[in-house]
Structures are given as structure tokens and as C-alpha cells.
């Protein structure tokens, strides 16, 4: 699904990722943890194609394609999805219009017919139930005036509608209360399938109580310092990141 090899990336010429390697196979859930500034969000944004980040070295293969050469919209249509840490507010852009435009762009890319209005409504209705989102938010401008939790649910709703092959969730758990966290986790778990991979970027291990990862990686100073299973996350929870930084 995803093969990252020796990835280096910089923001404003400041190196953030310094030779990152990661391999994600279909059906796997990977958690990427690390202290602030370790490069977690940079990794997520580089994978989605944010041009604010310069890839200076390395290679990323996604489903046999060279990911870094693809435009952000092509990555999305090929099934890559990034749930943003800070979802952007877009006054005047209707939530439904966004969902439909995004879905149709993907269908068109796959050579399929655009979805008709009735099927679209049906689809939205079923996905809304997964994320337990208020219907009224659908006809509002994207994220405008949404609470923090509503914004995160809205990201998961987009994910549920687009059904990506590779979902990257950038600190989707941060700022959520326990109820919202459970709902969002349920949304993620619903999407689990043998052909779909999920990369969870998180600062805390809390979400891993609800979404169980196959692998846990600790990112420190732009590199993966240690990989393990669920136990590693619990270890970090107990001891903090300090001991790993020291080891590194």
C-alpha cells in the first residue's frame, strides 16, 4: 500500500523529516506517535501533497505509483485521504456541495458515472449515522462556526463518504472529549477492511484504547526511533518520550 523510503522534508528550508522509513500493508492500522515538533504533521501533510513542505530527498510509493509526483487531487482520487488536524473553515462553501464535488471527482477519475441526487442523499444519510453528526451541519458552510468536535466529525464524514484506500488521520483525537472521541473512533473502526490501511498520527495513546493498531511507531526528530505493537504505546504513556530521545 505505502512504502516510504529515506524521506527528507523541510519547511522554509528547515529540515523536519530526516530519513523516515515506513511500510504499510493493506488492512493494517499504524499509529505514529511522537512529541511535539517531531515531524508527525509534516509527514501527514507531505503524504497529502501540501506544497508548503519541500521534499528534499527520498521516495514514496503508493499502490505502485510514485506518490510525490502526483498532484494532491490525484492522490485523493486514487484513494488517499488526510483528515486534517485543523480543518479549515470555508465560508460560503456548502458542506453538501463539497461532499458531492469530492465524490464525483473520484467517480469520474475511476471512469464511473456521477452519483445521482437520490443515491447521494441515501449515502450521506447512512454515513451521517456512523459519525453521529447533526444533519443541520450538512447545509452549512464547511466548518464555519463548527465546534472543535464537529469539525473532526466532519472530517470523518468526508472520509466515510469517500471510502479511501489509505486514510491518514492527523491528530484527529486532539481536543475531543471522551464522547466525541468514541464516536470518531467508531467511525474509523467502521472503515476497517482487509484492503484499507489507516495511519493514525497522535500525540496521546488515548485513541488507541478505541482503535487498536497493528503497529506503533515512535517518531523523534524526523526519524522513526522505535517500532513495536500496542505495548509500545502504553510504555510511552507511562514513561513519556524522554527515554527514547535519550536512546536515540
Amino acid at each position, binding site marked *: 500500500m505505502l512504502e516510504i523510503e529515506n524521506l527528507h522534508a523541510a519547511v522554509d528550508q528547515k529540515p523536519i523529516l530526516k530519513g523516515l522509513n515506513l511500510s504499510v500493508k493493506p488492512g493494517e492500522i499504524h499509529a505514529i506517535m511522537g512529541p511535539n515538533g517531531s515531524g508527525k504533521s509534516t509527514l501527514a501533510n507531505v503524504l497529502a501533497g501540501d506544497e508548503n513542505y519541500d521534499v528534499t530527498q527520498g521516495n514514496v510509493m503508493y499502490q505502485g505509483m510514485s506518490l510525490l509526483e502526483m*498532484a*494532491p*487531487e490525484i492522490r485523493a482520487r486514487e484513494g488517499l485521504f488526510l483528515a486534517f488536524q485543523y480543518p479549515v473553515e470555508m*465560508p460560503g*462553501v456548502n458542506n453538501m456541495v463539497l461532499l458531492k464535488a469530492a465524490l464525483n*471527482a473520484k467517480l469520474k477519475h475511476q471512469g464511473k458515472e456521477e452519483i445521482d441526487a437520490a443515491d447521494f442523499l441515501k449515502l450521506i444519510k447512512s454515513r451521517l449515522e456512523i459519525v453521529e453528526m447533526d444533519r443541520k451541519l450538512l447545509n452549512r458552510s464547511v466548518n464555519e462556526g463548527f465546534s472543535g468536535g464537529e469539525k473532526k466529525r466532519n472530517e470523518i464524514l468526508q472520509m466515510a463518504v*469517500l471510502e479511501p484506500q489509505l486514510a491518514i488521520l492527523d491528530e484527529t483525537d486532539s481536543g475531543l472529549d471522551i464522547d466525541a472521541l468514541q464516536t470518531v473512533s467508531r467511525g474509523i473502526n467502521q472503515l476497517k477492511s482487509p484492503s484499507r490501511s489507516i495511519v493514525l498520527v497522535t500525540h496521546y495513546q488515548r485513541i488507541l484504547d478505541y482503535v487498536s493498531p497493528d503497529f506503533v511507531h515512535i517518531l523523534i526528530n524526523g526519524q522513526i526511533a522505535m517500532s513495536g505493537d500496542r505495548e509500545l504505546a502504553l510504555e510511552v504513556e507511562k514513561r513519556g518520550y524522554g527515554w527514547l530521545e535519550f536512546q536515540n
Partner: protein
Amino acid sequence: MLPGSNHQWVQGLRESAIKRFAENGFPSRRDEEWKYTDLTGMSEQTFQPVVTPGTGSDGQPTEKSQIDHDNAIIIAFENGRWLFTEAGLDLPPPGVTITSLGKMLSDFPDRIKQHLALFTNPADHSLVSLNTAFSHEGAFVHIEKGVVLDRPIRLQYRSTSQDQPHLSLPRNLIVLEEGAEAVVVETYASENPFAAYWNNIHTEVALGQNARLEHIQVQDESLAAYHTTFTNVQQARDSRYVSHVYALGGLLARSDLDVSLEDSGAECELNGLTLTSGNQHIDHHTRIDHIEPDCSSRELYKGILADSSRGVFNGKIYVHPDAQRTAAFQSNPNLLLSRKAEIDTKPQLEIFADDVKCSHGATIGQLDQEALFFLRSRGIDELNARNILISAFAQEIVKKVSHSELQEELSELVSHSLLKLTGSHEVN
């Protein structure tokens, strides 16, 4: 002979206006009010005045210019001549007069004497003097006390290609008596997108106590046209004026909107949208006078400028010494789609009272890169993503229109106009 010239007061009005125009001539860039808009090119052209009175007659349309889906009452003009007044199947309710101003001037001048040219300060605008001096036609809308008209009134001005560039001087008088309510749509358009002509318009609005007017002005002239328009609004106690100004066409367009809040409790809301491309030049001057206490004004003018087009916004708010507890808010955000596009924005607050809430803000920017990336990350290509954001910026103004059918119509018009600015992709 111009209509009304057999009446002394009309003749007097015209003569003094001729005199003033002769004295002042065309505005020049030396005048602070015309600093950014140069009429030299225009004043050197020859325009053929249209002076023949209209040939239409009430209730018998010679031609219908559009499908009357909202049961509107239409008064239509071509090249400044009155074509027809048409109320559809249902006659307007009693107390509503919508007719040719030329006819009023020649037949019933005393019915308009009370309002015509009363509040216009001709010293400010020599082009208003030009209109007063020679205008022979326009619309007269009068809504009597307490009459609430929910059907929109459409004043439709259309220009066609002529052998020579022509000058039209439309003059509108809209009077709402105490407690009256109406929606008026004023449209200036051309059947030929490259027809050369000059429309020099003056619209006067008088709102009685507690009257309510939603006033939509759409400038969708040909791209070779000159359009100068002066709108003057007088508001009595507790009246409400909501204005929506759309500047879409024209080679050079200048719009002045002056609102005077004459008595306490009066409020106005001014919304404006300018879309320019090519080498269009569009200049908006607004002025709000807060004269008495407890009045409020809210102004939102937006501009989207492409290519090497040029925009001007000058928003004056005068809070007079007696106007305590004034609330006045003004905002002028602009989106530049090209490096060559240019906007000059100048908010001007002059406050002579001490207990007031006033704010203003102007921004000039490009599209939000973060929002653009967000849309692309959802599979939407860059061009479409840009169009979605541009459209969202523009449609915020359209959403201010409370009449739902008109809102829909304007939304389509704006989407269509945006194609000019953004290329061939359909805007969602």
C-alpha cells in the same frame, strides 16, 4: 420639447441645471471625488442624445423582455425610451403607481413636485445636473401609505446598438409613503455585448416613516459602455433601506450612492458586488449621513478583480453632531485574481458625535491557500477549487437578498459573470 417644459417649476429646474452643468463641466481628476476615475476619454467622444419620447402605452406591451416568473410589475425602456408598463395578469393593488416619469412630467407634474430633485445636491455632481437638465424619461414608482407590495417592481433599461454612440439620461423617482413596503429591481443591460453608449442615471428614493424598501441595482452593461449613476436616498423615522448594487459590465462605470438617515430609528444596509475583468474600470462611492440619533448603517462591498481591471471603493460615513448612539459598520474585502488588477479602497469616517459605535475594514487579498489545498486534498482539481472559493466569496453578497426568487436569479447572474473572470469552467 422636453416633457414638463410647459410647467414653470420643471422649466426652472432644467434651466438652473443647464447653467450649473455649463459652469462645472465634466468632473476632472483634480476633483478629490474623481481622483481615480478619468472621464477624459468619455468627454471627448460624441454621444447622440436620445430625445424622442417613448412610443409605448400603459398595459400594452410592445415586447416582453423576460419571462415574468415572479409576477413582477415591469416598466421597460430601450435606449432611454419608455417601451411599456406591464403588470402581468394581476393588476397592481390600489395605491401603487408605476409609470413613465416623462408622462408624469408632462401630464401630472404636481404629483412629483414634492420629491423631484428636492434632495439632490447638484453642486456635488455635475453629471446629476446634466441628467436634470435633459432627462426626458424614467420610472416613477409611488406606493401609498401602508401599502405592502410583495411583487417585485422591475425597472428594465436596455440598450441596443445604434449607428452612433448614444447618451441616455434615465431618471427614476421612487417614493414610499409611511409604512409602505416594496422591492424594486433596477437593471441596465445591453443586447449587444460590445455596443457603445453612455447611460447617465439619477435615481431618487424617498422613504416615509417606517417604510421599507429592498432596492436591487444591477449594472450589466456592454463592455464598451459608460455608465454613471447617482442614487440619492432620504429616510424618515424608523424607515429601512436595503440596497444591493451589482457592478458587472461596462468599460467605465461610476456609481454614487448617498443615503441620508434623516430621523431617528432609520436604518440602512448597503451591499455591493463588483466583478471586473479585461480593462474594466469600476468606481463605487457611497456616502451615509447619520443626522439624528439612534440610526444604524451596515455596509458590505466586495470586489473580485481579474486581468488588468481596476476598482475603486470610497465609503464615507458622516456622523453629525446630534447623531448620538449611531451604529455604523463598513467592510470592503477585495479579491485580486491577477497581478495586474488594482483596487483603491478608501474608507472615510467623519464622526462629530461622541456616543457612537463605528468600525470599518478593507482587505485586499488573494485566494486562501489553505482552503485551496483542502479542496484539492478532497480530489477537486485546482481550477475548480479556485472557482468554488471565488464563487463562495461572491455569493455571500447574493445571500443578503431576502426575496428568494430574486436571490436565485442574481445567483445565476453572478455565476455567469464569474465565468468571464475565471475562464471556461463552470462554477459550482
